[in-house]
């Protein structure tokens, strides 16, 4: 049922229901190559569920998700990642007992099998890549620091860095600035604007100030359906959106 499109990601008629409750309801959405899309919506709108569906954490009830014209809904999580989709979780999901360096190195997309990992060698290329990414996420001076003692904001960046190590074509970030200070928010906005140059990014966010800084195109979800889609100005002017979300 997948149609061939020029889009990087084509979500068509996607539905998932939990005991009859449709968290995502016949949703259709397309993401272009190199697009940065922000998904907003009130609590329970289905934003996180949408990311769960794309990355395979939740299996859809019906509909299709096609990435580079390849159907994703039946694939295992690790296969979806290998196809080029990276996902950041809402709470920082990093390996607390490993150093920043090790966190990034473990995420390097080689030696992914059991035996590959046993005989994986840290080549100069790996070290170079780790240093590049560490610089990008402003942790180049913390490479030997145990991840557990990083600040909350640094942990969020580290997880983004771990995804950058894999160089995904589609990066999905679930509330990347939640719990960050104003300064950290600004720096994260800059980081996002830099990293979306060669890839598509989907960001879920609550913070309207932050959304304004990064958004080019916004999708508003409400009760598992798309309420509005377009530029920030257009969405903010939309009466339905004001009613369910922005007006509060």
């Amino acid at each position, binding site marked *: 049922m997948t149609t061939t499109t020029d889009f990087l990601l084509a979500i068509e008629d996607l539905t998932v229901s939990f005991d009859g409750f449709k968290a995502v309801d016949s949703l259709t959405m397309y993401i272009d190559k190199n697009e940065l899309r922000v998904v907003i919506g009130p609590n329970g709108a289905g934003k996180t569920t949408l990311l769960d569906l794309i*990355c395979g*954490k939740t299996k859809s009830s019906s509909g299709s998700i096609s990435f580079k014209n390849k159907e994703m809904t039946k694939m*295992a*999580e*690790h296969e979806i*990642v*290998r196809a080029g989709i*990276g*996902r950041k*979780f809402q709470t920082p*999901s*990093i*390996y*607390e*007992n*490993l*150093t920043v*360096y*090790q966190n990034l*190195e*473990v*995420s390097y*997309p080689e*030696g*992914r*099998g*059991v035996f590959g*990992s*046993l*005989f*994986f060698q*840290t080549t100069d290329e790996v*070290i170079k890549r780790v*240093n590049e990414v560490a610089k990008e996420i402003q942790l*180049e*001076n*913390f*490479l*030997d*620091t*145990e991840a557990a*003692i*990083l*600040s909350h904001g*640094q942990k969020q960046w580290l*997880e983004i860095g*771990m995804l950058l190590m*894999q160089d995904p074509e589609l990066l999905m970030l679930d509330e990347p600035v939640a719990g960050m200070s104003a300064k950290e928010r600004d720096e994260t906005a800059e980081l996002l604007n830099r990293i979306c140059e060669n890839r598509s990014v989907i960001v879920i966010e609550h913070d309207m100030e932050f959304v304004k800084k990064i958004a080019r195109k916004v999708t508003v979800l409400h009760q598992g359906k798309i309420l509005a889609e377009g530029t920030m100005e257009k969405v903010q002017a939309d009466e339905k959106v004001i009613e369910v979300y922005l007006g509060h």
Partner: protein
Amino acid sequence: MNFVYERFLGGKNGALAIAILAILILVIFPLFLDAFRLNLVGKYLTFAFAAVSLVLLWGYGGILSLGQGVFFGLGGYAMAMFLKLEASDPESTKIQTTPGIPDFMDWNQLYELPWFWIPFESFTFTLLAIILVPSIFAFIIGYSMFKRRVGGVYFAIITQVIAVILTVLIVGQQGYTGGINGITDLKTLNGWDIRTDSAKLALYFINALLLLGVIMLSKFILTSKFGQLLLAMKDKEDRVRFSGYDVSNFKIFVFCVSAVIAAIGGAMFTLQVGFMSPSFVGIVPSIEMVIFAAVGGRMSLIGVVYGTLLVNFGKTGFSETFPELWLFLMGGLFIAVVMFFPNGLAGIWNKYAPKVPFLRPLVNSSTNAETKSAPAKIESESTIEPESTTEGAKS
């Protein structure tokens, strides 16, 4: 050479720790202990295999198996079956109804060797079976559990149930397994009498060398990316999965490796002690193995060997004087370790040894010494001291 040094020995600290252990078990024990005590230590060291297997599986993998006795037993029984067949030649069993089969089969009205015993007439097959039977068994259990994402307490309970099932099976099928008495009266290994003092001494050394070999192999696994992934999975399994790794495959593999290590210990146990019985398969021995690992320090391949020795010396000493109190003491010890010294002997060592001047060079600089990656930094030498980063992180 450098590769071997870094990966199998674990660099300077690791090599030193292995060297000290090697001197202790290869030189000091044989020099200062009489034949009886040395054989006892040899028996303890076979349990250390199981403890080492738990470092991989539980310490690093975060997968608690309460059924390592199953694999210890499978290895031990495989070896015992070979030895029993060799001890049951027609000449020495001529008073039986059916000469040439193990005595317990004769007592249980069996008139020919069961089919699954026949291959154990070959020593090569037996050696292969010690490795393959536990790994295939572990693969089946691991595949059916980890692919369905069964873990944690549920996995521990299931392994415990398997230990019970196997014990009941062995005890119930007396004619095929020797029942509750186990397989006894083992005499020779390819004609070499294993009951003599000289044979016991030789077996002690083979066992000690095998243990050191297993420790080095485990070190290799833990210093690889695989080892880091184990720690990563223990911490945030989903993050590993969503970084493109098939988590279940890694768990299955480490479970199989730990099964083989425990089985080698079991086979060496049979050779040195001269029998194998269900009392080394069930829940109690399996939990004892977990206690050895906990006391020694479940993150330390070397520490668990000392833990095993300490607990077993204690067990032998105390159960001679206060036999009825030993189990309570062991339970208390386990609780105390978990509550006050979660990293066991190795943790105490790493904490207090740096305060003693002449011990300082022997101490691992990092608690994660096993997974310390060598080229952790390159040009950026401006690494901030941990103290200042902590402050920076808090602000």
